[in-house]
């Protein structure tokens, strides 16, 4: 099929999420990979928001700034999003809309089917007709989605969908596309904030405390809604409490995590420093959004990289990981817990609103084959246990608070090997600083290099990190289709940066901030000469069109 970009637009509270989900799933049930991303305002009702679905023969898990089909459920949304419609694109609006290709009386058809509440099903049916999906798949999806709520509701939804479908078919006339043929291909349809909790549970996470903050809230919610994951959750009174609770639980032997956004991480930074000092593992997800301060709560950015790296007073090692998709989110969450435990450090996982609110179509979605256990150093101990015993690699045997045989002493003050307050500046303090930093040196040796895409013989290489991978690779593909020797390198293990031998090329760094934070790190850490920076800081996710425009 021809790649398609469909936008479903409306006000918050009008159910466009349901429509987008139904249409994306309809494609998926027919064997086509659908990607869906949402953008919305920071409000509960009203405003303009959209769900954007992309479908092609192969997965394109990246946003497009253009719509081939725009379905708006109200006239304001139609006017607001219409500029994004491609030339020759199809506009679908409510009855009475000006200059639309298809106008559907959403409310009237819904009421005929059983009530105004079914307007979303009418819209989903109309969209199916507009893209050539047979109505059967949607009918089945509705049966599955509403089955628990009884036959009456299923039948009303199905009737509404059929009414929308028929109305659209009638108006489309010659423009009605041929039905798309079903394929055998099967895809997983998931978002990173759904899979982070699964990865955490796989890694043995037991404790999660967080304070609600967009766009991170989905993570604690997923734990709470899925008790089978076995993770205790608590909504803390603030992020300070959240990080300290998690550290307490971790010190007592429970793998523990928290999640927040930049503003919440600002409150957590003293706790990050505490984790560094008491050498207690913790995983912290920062779901980034644009700042400073409250910024744009429901928009996306990659502005907190240097903050994640430097947040916390004093000098101590940490790791920063940034998944690019829901599979990465599983793998890197497992890795985050593993690194946190083995090096006894805080590990930060950087996501963002775009990644949180995007559902990817993936050929595989699986757990890593090997997952390490908990508290690796539990077995260690001589007669006298010292929590901060000086060792060659800086990692001391770690027992938990409450160990039945050995007393464990953790202290935020500079401490002796036994964990007690010290002011011995001649020997203990320098030895403890070296001990902590040695862990970072060893950590650096095991950080993964970036993944390479078409870098052999590439004259220009685009570098990205975290959630921008598929958008950058789409840009690379389009440039290569034009005969340009372009490739990409993508980092998901961000800090510490490993030593790298990079090929000769003109390097451009693409990231969601105005100041080139990662570009600066590449320059200072690797001595890489950066030819150009492409930064997006308007709150929208990076897309291939924006990259191509900057490069042209």
């Amino acid at each position: 099929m021809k790649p398609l970009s469909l936008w479903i637009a409306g006000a918050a509270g009008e159910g466009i999420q349901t429509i987008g989900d139904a249409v994306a799933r309809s494609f998926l049930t027919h064997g086509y990979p659908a990607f869906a991303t949402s953008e919305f305002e920071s409000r509960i009702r009203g405003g303009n928001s959209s769900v954007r679905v992309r479908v092609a023969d192969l997965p394109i898990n990246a946003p497009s700034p253009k719509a081939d089909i725009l379905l708006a459920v109200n006239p304001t949304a139609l006017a607001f999003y219409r500029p994004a419609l491609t030339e020759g694109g199809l506009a679908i609006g409510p009855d009475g809309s000006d200059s639309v290709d298809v106008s559907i009386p959403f409310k009237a058809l819904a009421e005929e089917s059983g009530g105004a509440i079914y307007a979303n099903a009418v819209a989903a049916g109309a969209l199916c007709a507009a893209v050539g999906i047979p109505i059967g798949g949607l009918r089945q999806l509705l049966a599955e989605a509403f089955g628990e709520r009884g036959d009456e509701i299923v039948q009303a939804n199905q009737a509404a969908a059929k009414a929308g479908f028929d109305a659209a078919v009638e108006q489309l006339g010659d423009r009605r596309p041929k039905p798309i043929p079903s394929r055998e291909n099967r895809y997983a349809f998931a978002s990173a904030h759904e899979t982070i909790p699964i990865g955490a549970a796989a890694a043995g996470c037991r404790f999660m405390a967080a304070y609600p903050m967009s766009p991170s809230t989905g993570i604690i919610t997923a734990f709470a809604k899925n008790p089978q994951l076995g993770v205790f959750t608590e909504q803390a009174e603030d992020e300070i409490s959240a990080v300290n609770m998690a550290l307490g639980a971790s010190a007592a032997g429970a793998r523990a995590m928290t999640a927040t956004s930049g503003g919440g991480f600002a409150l957590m930074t003293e706790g990050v420093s505490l984790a560094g000092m008491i050498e207690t593992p913790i995983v912290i997800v920062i779901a980034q959004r644009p700042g400073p301060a409250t910024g744009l709560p429901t928009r996306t950015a990659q502005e907190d990289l240097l903050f994640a790296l430097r947040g916390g007073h004093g000098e101590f090692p940490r790791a920063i990981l940034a998944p690019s998709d829901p599979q990465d989110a599983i793998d890197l969450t497992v890795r985050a817990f593993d690194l946190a435990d083995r090096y006894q450090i805080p590990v930060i996982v950087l996501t963002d609103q775009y990644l949180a609110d995007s559902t990817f179509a993936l050929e595989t979605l699986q757990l890593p084959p090997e997952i390490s256990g908990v508290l690796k150093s539990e077995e260690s101990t001589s007669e006298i246990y010292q929590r901060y015993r000086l060792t060659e690699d800086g990692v001391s045997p770690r027992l938990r608070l409450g160990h039945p045989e050995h007393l464990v002493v953790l202290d935020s003050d500079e401490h002796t090997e036994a964990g007690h307050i010290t002011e011995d500046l001649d020997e203990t303090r320098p030895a403890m600083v070296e001990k902590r930093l040695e862990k970072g040196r060893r950590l650096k040796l095991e950080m993964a290099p970036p993944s390479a895409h078409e870098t052999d013989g590439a004259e220009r290489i685009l570098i990205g990190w975290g959630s921008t991978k598929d958008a950058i690779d789409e840009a690379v593909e389009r440039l290569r289709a034009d005969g340009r020797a372009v490739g990409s390198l993508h980092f998901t293990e961000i800090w510490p940066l490993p030593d790298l031998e990079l090929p000769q090329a003109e390097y451009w760094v693409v990231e969601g901030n105005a100041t080139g934070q990662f570009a600066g790190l590449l320059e200072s850490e690797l001595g890489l000469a950066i030819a150009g920076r492409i930064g997006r800081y308007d709150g929208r996710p990076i897309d291939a069109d924006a990259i191509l425009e900057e490069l042209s």
Partner: protein
Amino acid sequence: MTAENRFRSDVPNQWCPGCPNFGILAAMQQALLALELQPEQVCLVSGIGQAAKFPHYVRAHVFNGLHGRALPAATGIAVANPSLTTIVTSGDGDLYGEGGNHFLHTLRRNPDLTVVVHNNQIYALTKGQAAPTTPRCEKTRLQVEGVEVDPAHMLATAIAHNCTFVARGFAGDIPALSDLLQQAIGHRGLSIVEVIQPCITWGNHPIDWYREKLLPVGEEHDPTDRLRTIELALQAPERWATGILYRTDPRPVFAESHFKRIDGRAMVDMPLVDRSILEEELSKRRVSLSG
């Protein structure tokens, strides 16, 4: 007693010689011994300040964390290992000031913790500024014209939030304090023991001045009468009611339903979630072909 005091720590003590904190330390060790606890069964948690050094001077598990953050850390510890006797010992500045918000929400949560608040009415380690408990008009090194705000009524707040064990003791009366601590530690849920601990370095008054303001609750005191006990607590700082001010039947502790699910085990002893459960979660995301 010292010969067989298994809670005695040989860590050099940094308190001022003669500090009433030593009385609290003795009372705590006596209480732990009287309860027949072993050091491995006890975890002491503190924030920052002179009082917060307390855990180092007791042989037990120790979490000496950040200023003001003892309560959330202790809550995490108590949830992760419910069989551990978790006791918070920190100052009034730490628990009522820097950690005031956590104090309020810990009252709501009711974790199974004992909280010992060393109330010396002053910031001592930072050399003599007002604490949230310092009376109005009292002159300090910083509030040179006298404190111009009212002291916080945190015990009254605790009773208002139905903290089911609220007591006050005096560092100069070790036997009575030890008895209070034993009862507090034995009480299921959050128990709070505020201890009047005159500061012999920065305090403005001799120890007898504090002693004269003590008001031991009599036998006729009804510790279940919430409104009456709030009135009693509100007499501070003019008079400090001592003894068990408020005590009622324990209410459900924080994470009670979680503890029931896992038979009260420590989180570290819970088996990993079965891989097949997680694989099932992932396979739910796979969108199947329809007919």
